[in-house]
């Protein structure tokens, strides 16, 4: 069957096109397109109800009985395990939006779904897919200019505005009632790690510099931005070592403080009883030498990397370290070393002989704190000379369900702020930009001629699905709201959007519902490109 389609393109196929197989090929490509579009729309419909501040949540139960409740589009789609190849593209779409902007993962899928519906009716009219694809691109270019026209510049020193943007993102999440607590955490932590970018003259943010530490227990109220570094490891206290040191000098050790192990083939041979004592004493001496070297370097807090081959510490070495009043934190993961080293400003040390005073980090206070709910973390505050500024966020929640959702929501909020730092423009939320784009594109379509005009028009209409869905999810009457929005926007009040709190259409900038321009811009671009790609597929060939 597939051969017929391929043959049609080749030179010999020119003849065949006039016979029956040519007709079938058109029919087939229609079917393929239809099946792709239907599958992709199915995905978009699935997440539609979770859009907006009053969106609902999804509960996903995987086979092993684990339950997940979330509002995050990217998470829903990833976990849903869709099978259809075209549907998978939409899942990927939301993932790219997650990577690019971090927020708006539901919107991007909803917009793509709407565009797909629009293209279906265009196809029915007999417009060729490539022309539709072209028309959508034209519409997108225009839409982006409309968006830039609406955007307002942001001053990164204006903390209030940034807070509003973070709250807008948080308000649609399960943890929305904590947005007044989480928004400042997100804003402060991103601003702390922002760096001037020498190339572009702007700022850049690497979210790897922001570490979220999860610890079950307590409630979301107990989340906090820690001034310094938090480690979830407890400090080793079996030998009664100190758990609080002020004026600390921290060493980051990648070596083990334990007696060396002989290789498997080798063994120590004891031939008389005196040497038994010597062996025991030798072990003590060996460890003692190490501990003395550490002490001599001036370190009084040790962070020791986890080791598989040898015990990182032994009871005996902890005993010695406790005696010389050195605080020990073990089980530091290999993956944490880089972050710790740059945030504390210390060099990881791979051998005890290399441990010198200049490799230590000066920290005002290192202490083990008991959090509400009896869990313990180690907190390093007052870091003197960090290599790069980092921030640590301690996320608490009464169970893993809440904890994970809190972390996901916080991540979205962080991304929002990051987007603002990257591109310092904001735009009104509450679907104001979508309506404005729809109106402007409809006007623009009148300037165009032919099928392109038709496509741009359809594109404009498709965008109205966002205000429609938002109103529907908020329990408002969608038709009323959308027509009112159109009217107000036609009057030139381009910041008018749906005010979910009041259940009316108002100037949304006054309500401080704002989002970064980058989020909506990337959503539009990604959704359009994805739809264009789907449109161009006319055959699915299964191959091994």
């Amino acid at each position, binding site marked *: 069957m597939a051969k017929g389609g391929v043959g049609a393109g080749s030179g010999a196929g020119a003849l065949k096109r006039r016979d029956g197989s040519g007709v079938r090929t058109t029919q087939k490509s229609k079917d393929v397109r239809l099946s792709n579009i239907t599958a992709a729309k199915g995905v978009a419909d699935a997440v539609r*109800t979770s859009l907006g501040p009053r969106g609902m949540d999804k509960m996903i139960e995987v086979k092993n009985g684990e339950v997940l409740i979330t509002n995050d589009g990217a998470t829903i789609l990833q976990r849903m395990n869709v099978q259809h190849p075209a549907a998978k593209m939409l899942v990927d779409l939301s993932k790219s939006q997650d990577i690019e902007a971090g927020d708006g993962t539901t919107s991007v899928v909803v917009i793509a779904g709407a565009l797909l519906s629009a293209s279906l009716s265009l196809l029915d009219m007999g417009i060729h897919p490539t022309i539709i694809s072209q028309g959508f691109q034209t519409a997108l270019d225009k839409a982006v200019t409309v968006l830039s026209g609406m955007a307002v510049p942001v001053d990164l020193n204006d903390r209030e505005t940034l807070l509003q943007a973070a709250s807008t993102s948080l308000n649609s999440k399960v943890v929305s009632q904590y947005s007044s607590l989480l928004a400042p955490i997100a804003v402060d932590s991103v601003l702390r790690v922002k760096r001037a970018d020498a190339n572009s003259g702007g700022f850049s943010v690497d979210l790897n510099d922001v570490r979220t530490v999860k610890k079950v227990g307590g409630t979301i109220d107990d989340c906090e931005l820690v001034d310094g570094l938090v480690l979830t490891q407890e400090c080793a206290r079996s030998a009664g070592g100190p758990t609080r040191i002020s004026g600390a000098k921290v060493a980051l050790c990648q070596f083990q403080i334990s007696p060396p192990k002989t290789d498997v083939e080798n063994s120590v*041979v004891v031939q008389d009883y005196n040497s038994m004592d010597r062996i025991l004493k030798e072990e003590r001496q060996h460890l003692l030498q190490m501990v003395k070297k550490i002490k001599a370097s001036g370190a009084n807090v040790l962070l020791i990397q986890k080791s598989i081959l040898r015990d990182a510490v032994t009871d005996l070495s902890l005993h010695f370290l406790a005696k010389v009043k050195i605080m020990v934190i073990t089980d530091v993961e290999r993956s944490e070393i880089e972050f710790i080293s740059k945030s504390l400003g210390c060099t990881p040390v791979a051998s005890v002989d290399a441990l010198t005073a200049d490799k230590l980090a000066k920290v005002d206070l290192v202490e083990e704190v008991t959090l509400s709910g009896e869990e313990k973390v180690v907190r390093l505050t007052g870091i003197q000379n960090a290599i790069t500024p980092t921030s640590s966020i301690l996320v608490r929640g009464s169970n893993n369900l809440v904890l994970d959702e809190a972390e996901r929501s916080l991540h979205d909020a962080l991304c929002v702020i990051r987007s603002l730092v990257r591109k310092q423009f904001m735009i009104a939320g509450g679907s104001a930009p979508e309506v404005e784009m729809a109106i402007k594109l409809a006007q623009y379509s009148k300037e165009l001629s032919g099928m392109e005009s038709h496509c741009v028009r359809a594109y404009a209409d498709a965008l109205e699905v966002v205000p429609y869905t938002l109103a529907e999810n908020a329990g408002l009457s969608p038709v009323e709201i959308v027509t009112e929005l159109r009217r107000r926007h036609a009057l030139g009040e381009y910041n008018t959007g749906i005010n979910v709190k009041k259940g009316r259409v108002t100037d949304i900038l006054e309500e401080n519902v704002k989002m970064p321009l980058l989020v909506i811009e990337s959503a539009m671009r990604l959704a359009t490109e994805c739809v264009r790609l789907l449109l161009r597929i006319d055959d699915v060939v299964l191959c091994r």
Partner: protein
Amino acid sequence: MAALSIEGSRSSGQDVRSGNVTACVAIANIVKTSLGPVGLDKMLVDEVGDVTVTNDGATIIKQLEIEHPAGKVLAELAAQQDDEIGDGTTSVVIMAAELLRCANQLVLDKIHPTTVISGLRMAMRECVKCIKKELSTPTEKLGRDVLVNAAKTSLSSKILGTAESDLFANMAVDAVLQTKTIDDYSGKARYPLSSVHILKAQGKSAHESHILEGFALNAMGAAQGMPTYLKGVRIACLDIDLRRTKMKMGVSVLVNNPDEMQKMADRELDITKERIMAILNAGGNLILTTQGIDDTSLKYFVDAGVIACRRVPMKDMKRIAAMTGATLLTSFADLDGNETFEASMLGSADECVEERVRDDKLLLIKGGAKQRSNTVLLRGPNEIMCDEMARSFHDSTAVVKRVLENNAVVAGGGAVEVALSLHLENFALSISSREQIVVTEFADALLVIPKTLAMNAAQDASELLAKLRAKHAESPANKDWGLDLIEGQIRNNLEAGVVEPAISKVKSIQFATEAAITILRIDDLIRLEGENPNEALEG
């Protein structure tokens, strides 16, 4: 709506909501009859045949094997209340289920779920404000009585309830007050419940439970010849093996001369002997270790006339070390690489007695140098009862702790719920949006607690509730009036000594509302049957 191509089933909309609510109400119905002073217990039998008899909502729900995902959310709610407050788990589950039932009804009546959710949240905030401002009574002026009363209220629904509540309430208060520690850095008083030492011993009646002076260690002298009484105890706390010293892995012994072999065996014993002698010379007369002691080593202790205990649990050891000021040692090594034991590492206590409880012998360490310590000894006819007693006792200590930390109580016996319900009804009239209906429903839902209380006590719930509401409506000063479930009347529960910590009510209303909202927000349930769900996660 287009079909979704996933491996599994998907249901959405009202079906999911109703299904979730039904599941939650079913769970609440299980615990419903255990609420209140006249509530009854449940017997839970697991697949192995182990029996648990309990009145504690959290324990019941923990044991249930809940399959419905929404039910799991409710179960987690109970666990959360248990962790944060330690009491009130039954009422929080009942309330969450009732809120859900009412909310679902509203949704069926065509009120949009988001409106219901915002209404619930509004009502919850108002409740919390009302409890904090109007309903709670500060405890500063009430003294010890209020602690005892709070403990009694918590115990009243439990097996320790009616007859023994005086005894146990006082024990709970004493035990918690004992744990008071001042945080070194912040200067705040803390009451770590983990240091309330509860010992369960089967046999004798519950009446004969008492507080033992001193720390009871469920261990005794390792050898027959050891003394059973010591005065002026010097304690060594060790985490060291006092058995024959063995060479490490990777050390092999190669002997050419048979004499050498004997010497080596002797040496292995002697290394341990030297360690023991170091302790004895330093003046230690009670030696505790978390690890083993050889029979050969025991004779040194017997000869010296001291007590030595092996296999002491680490948790107890830490308590003893803190109590007596001993240093918990993991090694004898000093900074010169030799093995020594200094007298400064010993802790001290006034006396140490071996006491017999049932067939077991306990070692009581009395009068620690740093802290006094008591042990709660719970007696009961069988193990199941002892377990339940320990759970109830734990709940009441948790309540005492909350009262001490938050210094505010509210009247129990449905008083708070009725007061809040009336308050909300008035508050609802000040709202001129659709949320008004939701707040009114919330007010109704709150009454489920007094209703269930009365019903469990086989009283006329409707009549009692009507009387109580009328009393509350008379004047705001009657806010502490609640149900007297034994007499079937209403009374001032604050004066009658039925009190609960205010924070417990606040949290339970918050948790119940949060859980109800979490479940209401769900409009889609996707069950996956795929081979490996994690693949989708990574891909």
